């Protein structure tokens, strides 16, 4: 066991050289390659993370969009439903109004037809009655219808309240001193005389009696003086007749309506 110092020195030099050689050819390149690979892997991991995050963000965005779409769809459906509902309501209302208008129109038409019919009937009845009455009067009582009507009119004038007669006479005198007698037909001279006499008796002979003819009166005589009027005509009878007739029609309509229903 001995130490050769020359060899020791040589080995030290050898060792230092070996350190340098291995440092240059082994450690440095290997460590660098490993570091580079680690960096590479870290980069890829980082990239993957970024990509995953981006994908996640995108997925979230899509989910959000889907939610929005769903919400929008729900809203649209709700709106459409409400619109349809209101439209239906509107249509129903319109139909109802149309029906109501039609019904009113029909009622109006019916009423008009009824009124026309009654008026026509009344006119015809009046005409027929007048003719009938005229013939009956001349056949039975040897008297004209005009004379009978004049009588009836004279009776009504006589039956008037004395105060009223007085007021009418005064008013007529104050105004123009006239009494106007209107009839539906031309009064014969004798009937005129009789009427004039009755009027003079009732209102005083200072008043002039003037005769006029008008189609408005239905078979009757009317006295007009200073805003007052005394009338006898078939109108009252006809009104009553019309009233009864209308009642009868209503009754008949009421009877037929449930049957029709």
């Amino acid at each position: 066991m001995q130490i050769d110092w020359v060899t020791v020195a040589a080995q030290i030099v050898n060792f230092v050289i070996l350190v340098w050689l291995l440092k240059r050819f082994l450690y440095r390149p290997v460590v660098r390659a490993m570091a580079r690979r680690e960096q590479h892997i870290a980069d890829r991991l980082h990239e993957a993370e970024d990509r995953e995050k981006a994908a996640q963000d995108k997925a979230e965005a899509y989910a959000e969009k889907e939610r929005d779409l769903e919400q929008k769809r729900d809203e649209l459906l709700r709106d459409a439903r409400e619109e349809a509902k209101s439209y239906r309501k509107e249509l129903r209302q319109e139909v109802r109004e149309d029906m109501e208008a039609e019904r009113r129109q029909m009622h109006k038409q019916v009423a008009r037809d009824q009124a026309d019919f009654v008026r026509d009937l009344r006119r015809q009845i009046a005409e027929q009655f007048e003719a009938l009455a005229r013939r009956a009067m001349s056949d039975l009582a040897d008297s004209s219808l005009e004379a009978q009507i004049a009588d009836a009119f004279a009776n009504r004038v006589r039956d008037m309240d004395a105060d009223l007669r007085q007021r009418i006479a005064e008013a007529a005198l104050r105004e123009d001193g006239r009494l106007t007698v209107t009839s539906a037909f031309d009064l014969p001279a004798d009937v005129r005389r009789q009427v004039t006499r009755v009027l003079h008796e009732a209102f005083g002979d200072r008043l002039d009696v003037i005769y006029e003819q008008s189609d408005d009166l239905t078979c009757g005589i009317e006295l007009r003086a200073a805003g007052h009027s005394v009338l006898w005509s078939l109108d009252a009878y006809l009104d009553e007749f019309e009233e009864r007739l209308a009642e009868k029609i209503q009754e008949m309509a009421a009877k037929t309506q449930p049957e029709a229903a």
Partner: protein
Amino acid sequence: MEISPDQVVLWRWGTLELNATIVFTWMVMALLAVGARVITWRLSTTTRISRWQNLVEVLVEGMRSQIREVSRQEPGNYLPFIGTLFLFIAVSNALTIVPGWQPPTGSLSTTTALALCVLVAVPVFAIAERGVLAYLRKYVQPTFFMLPFNIIGELSRTVALAVRLYGNIMSGTVIVGILLSIVPFLFPIVMQLLGLLTGLIQAYIFAILAMVYIASATRAHPGEHGDSNEGGENASAQS
């Protein structure tokens, strides 16, 4: 019987002698350097690597992790020194399975040279790390009277380092030589295998101890960063 390869003179020129120790050292150096150069000629930085690259990466990373564990520092500066110690000793010892191989580590001159390298490396690393004063102050701690003991300790552990490696390797070679003359078959092969194991363990111990010495010197207070001294003592105990 020749105990040391120093005594095997292969070539002589005047007073200069070229002994087996130096020649076999050169062979180890050539093997390591050329091998390293060939393997690291084209290193891949992708995840697909050759198996040789894989081998050196495992080796280098293993050494780095050992250094990191012992020193609790980044292995960057220490790796070339410690790693070369380990690789040189390990390769020298492992090649004893080659017939006629004279391991350079079986020469006291080589182990002394390596131990001297460690002796120098300790203060060099320590001063580079902490500065001259801080390093020198370590010798007068805990008191000034400890100075001689500290110096003796420094020297004795260097001697121990050298003699431990030399003794182990030389004894292995000598035992195989003796056994060969007594039991010519089988038993020497078993001893050879045992010697291979011992050689690798010695390489590990030498490198780790060197690292422990450097680590304890580069630290402000022994034990400040953990139990590296304990690790060193454990390693010594194994030898």
